[in-house]
């Protein structure tokens, strides 16, 4: 076991660090921030994805033949660390990179790989995820959106929900029912759907944070060419499990860890400067205990991810261990934001643009957003079932 990096890995880090110096906007994270407006922010994140691509830093661990650079998972980890160090913006095509691309890479045909992967890497095509439905949440296998085959097309009818970034996406991958007469897991297929297809409509859903990143997406006689199925017809559940393993996997967890680390560092800096009585907010003993817990948990998130990377590198298969990562980071991050608000004491309610809000109200917004962590990509209860049954072997 060695937590140190090889010379080649350090070289990779140096090249990336050099590139980042010029790539980030002047004054980034000090005087220059992401736009407040959601649409402007989406454009900003798209521009950032394209800049990464232009510099050769997009889709780095995918094979070269599809536009990647064949980087190792460890280099992928270094990439995430350096993005964190620089406080780099988020991309908008996370679902394309982490879910659509990885699933196509694993289960797609050669033609699908050639068609879709380069456009994900270049972010010419942004993706959204069509899994959940109003009546198929934790019980994902009971999705009702129908896809009926007519010649060389599927005709899709139904409704998906919680489709993040649907309004900015060119493509959607969806889990649809292709056979209603077999047990529910066995009648599903995995389709790639062009969001420009006639019959698709999107309605934004407002979240408790006030934002509308989520949508309801409606499919009304939407035509999908049969070549856009991933895997065989009625084999969609198996494909979707791959997608979920990636959605909950170490790449995702490490990317998030970096954001949490940045926010925790900002919180510490703010508390160290925040006057309270004769001293500073950071002096409070109870606050310090809870901050220490969050410092540790955010570091453990990183180590959990790196340990999982190493397992895959050493030849182990992706499996229920992804649920373990997700269950951990989601609750740890929620605790961190609760700690953040408690640590701010009387200032905790001040949010948004209030002139006395700490850190521009970021912690209040993040606290609201964090309520989704233990619900999306499989609620904690579902993750616990998976861990209990598939890792520990407890009876169903």
């Amino acid at each position, binding site marked *: 076991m060695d937590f*140190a990096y*090889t010379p080649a890995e350090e070289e990779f880090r140096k090249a990336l660090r050099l590139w980042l110096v010029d790539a980030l906007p002047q004054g980034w994270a000090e005087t220059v921030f992401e736009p407040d407006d959601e649409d402007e922010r989406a454009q900003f994140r798209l521009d950032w994805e394209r800049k990464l691509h232009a510099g050769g830093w997009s889709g780095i661990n995918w094979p070269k033949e599809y536009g990647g650079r064949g980087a190792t998972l460890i280099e992928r*980890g270094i990439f995430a660390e350096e993005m964190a160090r620089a406080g780099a913006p988020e991309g908008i095509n996370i679902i394309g990179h982490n879910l659509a691309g990885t699933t196509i890479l694993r289960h797609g045909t050669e033609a699908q790989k050639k068609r879709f992967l380069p456009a994900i890497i270049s972010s010419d095509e942004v993706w959204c995820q069509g899994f959940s439905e109003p009546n198929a949440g934790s019980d994902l296998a009971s999705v009702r959106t129908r896809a009926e085959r007519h010649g060389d097309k599927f005709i899709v009818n139904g409704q998906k929900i919680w489709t993040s970034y649907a309004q900015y996406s060119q493509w959607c991958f969806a889990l649809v029912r292709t056979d209603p007469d077999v047990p529910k897991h066995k009648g599903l297929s995995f389709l790639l759907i062009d969001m420009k297809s006639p019959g698709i409509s999107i309605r934004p859903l407002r979240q408790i944070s006030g934002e509308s990143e989520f949508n309801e997406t409606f499919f009304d006689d939407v035509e999908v060419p049969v070549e856009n199925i991933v895997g065989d017809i009625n084999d969609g559940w198996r494909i979707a499990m791959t997608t979920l393993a990636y959605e909950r996997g170490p790449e995702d967890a490490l990317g998030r860890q970096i954001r949490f680390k940045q926010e925790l560092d900002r919180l510490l800096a703010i508390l*160290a400067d925040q006057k309270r009585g004769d001293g500073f907010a950071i002096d409070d*003993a109870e606050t310090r205990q809870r901050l*220490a*817990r969050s410092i540790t948990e955010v570091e453990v998130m990183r180590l959990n991810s790196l340990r999982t990377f190493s397992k895959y590198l050493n030849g182990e298969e992706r499996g229920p261990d992804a649920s373990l990562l997700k269950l951990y980071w989601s609750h740890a991050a929620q605790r961190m934001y609760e700690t953040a608000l408690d640590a701010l004491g009387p200032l905790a309610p001040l949010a948004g643009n209030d002139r006395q809000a700490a850190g521009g109200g970021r912690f209040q917004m993040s606290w609201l957003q964090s309520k989704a962590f233990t619900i999306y990509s499989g609620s904690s209860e579902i993750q616990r079932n998976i861990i209990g049954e598939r890792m520990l*072997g407890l*009876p169903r």
Partner: protein
Amino acid sequence: MNFGFDEDQKSLAHTVAQQLADFPSLIAPELTTAANDEVWRALTDLGLFALLVPERNDGVGLTMVDLALAVEALGAGLAPPLVVSTLLATDAIMRHGSDPQQRALLPRVAIGELKIAIALLEADSGYDVRTCRTTLTDESLHGEKILVAGAADADLLLVVASGNNGPVVVLVEPGAAGVTVQAHDDLDPTSGHCAIRFDRVKLDGDAVLGQAAPARAVERLLDVGATLYAGQLMGIAARMLDAAVDYAKTRVQFGQPIGAFQAIKHRCADMAVAVEAGRSAAYYAFWAVSHDAPDRARAASMAKAYCGDVGRHVCNETIQVHGGMGFTWELGLHRFLRRSKVIEHAFGDAAWHNERIVAETLAEMTGADDRNQNAA
């Protein structure tokens, strides 16, 4: 970079676990230390005590990382605490001992001739060594230590004391004039906890570890101790998780194994998450102390604070999953509960380490700011 352990490291842990399993009384319900001498001999035959000793002192020259999984196994098997304290002392002597100290002690450690206990805590000093009231003045040691695990069987004591210029670690023979060892009555009688009085004990000039910078020897002793104890806690926690899962699979109520109920299944899942998270913290600390990494202190504190909480959580939950059986003497879960609790409070408890984590983090942030300003 690779966070996986190699086959040698895994096989060492496996062998240690097997050796300990040969002595059922280690984990039996009755609180006995009858097997301790035999366990010591078995682990000596295995070569455990030579592993950390450098080759120049007749050892194997392995690192703490190489022993990480073996330390988990020692925890899981409720090995006599002298085993781990001797490994800890080996590290201290090897890193900070003078040449003569190393030549005199390490070859004997390697062949299992020296059982070494660590005397750190005092009844009225908390965990902070800067407030340590045991003093070393003019080569005379005076004061009282508590909770020295295995002291009655030890051949050598490593004692933390306040020297003229700060904390020091001193080597003391338990048979020296003025040393009185008295057994405690405590939660885990199998840890062999003793109080030790040092009544103006005369030491020779070479008794201090790391003469040049003695405080560094103390710091490292604390960090490595915290790490080794965190590792043991993870061994206990992993074993308790296994016990809970096994019981949940076989115990039938309401016509089905209780592990089918989400109330039980989810508790087990949360324990599994806690065990893996604790291991992440512990393994990183093993790496950090092996490499003397810049964040060694914080890594060790994170591991100890976190694994302490995990050990407590998993022991409590495992007893709960076992229901009425869990509370019985005969099932023996109390052995792990007791050991876990005393380890949790040794080498700094969670509150103490948490404070250290925050202090280290803030200091690092300030340091980073200063470096940036200097660079600008």
